[in-house]
């Protein structure tokens, strides 16, 4: 398992290739990448704040749960912080399992929990000013299915 919390951009292709090269007996790899939406050209930047220390602990705990529940053979989470521009990748997850159902489920579980249990806060900087992104009730409700 690999967890990276970083300010720097990452190379989705290179990270995916490195992950796939190390998954051993897996028959399925699922990857998800989250991007900064450009919101019709009105967004100038997305600023992401986090809680160093708790971020790593919270994500590691979520990854441990995913591994235990779906027999995940390997998992990767990369999540950026700092100032990002529209179109840039914010984060990616990758999961490897023997079969695709487990890999998909584990990736969705990781995404749902990263949204509302990993201590990141997004601020949208637009032409008219800056505003913190409010958490969505739907994101909290999504945890109920697990």
């Amino acid at each position, binding site marked *: 398992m690999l967890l990276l919390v970083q300010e720097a951009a990452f190379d989705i292709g290179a990270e995916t290739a490195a992950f796939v090269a190390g998954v051993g007996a897996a028959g399925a790899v699922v990857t998800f990448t*989250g991007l900064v939406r450009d919101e019709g050209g009105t967004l100038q930047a997305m600023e992401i*704040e*986090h*809680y160093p*220390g*708790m971020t790593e*602990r*919270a994500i590691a705990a979520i990854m441990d749960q995913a591994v235990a529940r779906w027999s995940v053979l390997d998992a990767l989470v990369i*999540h950026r912080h700092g100032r990002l521009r529209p179109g840039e990748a*914010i*984060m990616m997850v990758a999961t490897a399992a023997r079969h695709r159902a487990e890999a998909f489920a584990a990736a969705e579980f990781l*995404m749902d929990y*990263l*949204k*509302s*249990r*990993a*201590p*990141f*806060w*997004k*601020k949208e900087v637009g032409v008219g000013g800056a505003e*913190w*992104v*409010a*958490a969505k009730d739907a994101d*909290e409700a999504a945890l109920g299915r697990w």
Partner: protein
Amino acid sequence: MIDVLYFAWVRERIGVPRERIQTDAATVADLVAELSAREERYALAFADLASLRVALDQELSSFDAGLSGVREVAFFPPMTGG
């Protein structure tokens, strides 16, 4: 002494990212009441506890949790990761 951390708009309202506070507060709610009584900026930040979350020593917790043995308290809005 306890380290108190603030994130996102809570940090902006209070004006500092972290501070060390001398307190005898027994619970998180007691600490919130103590800070709110101290200065207006705390009262504004803590006006609606339903819109806030709290972590004790980097684990999500609740406002009625005790502070005995806790070294680090963090206040922040609901998280928006992913």
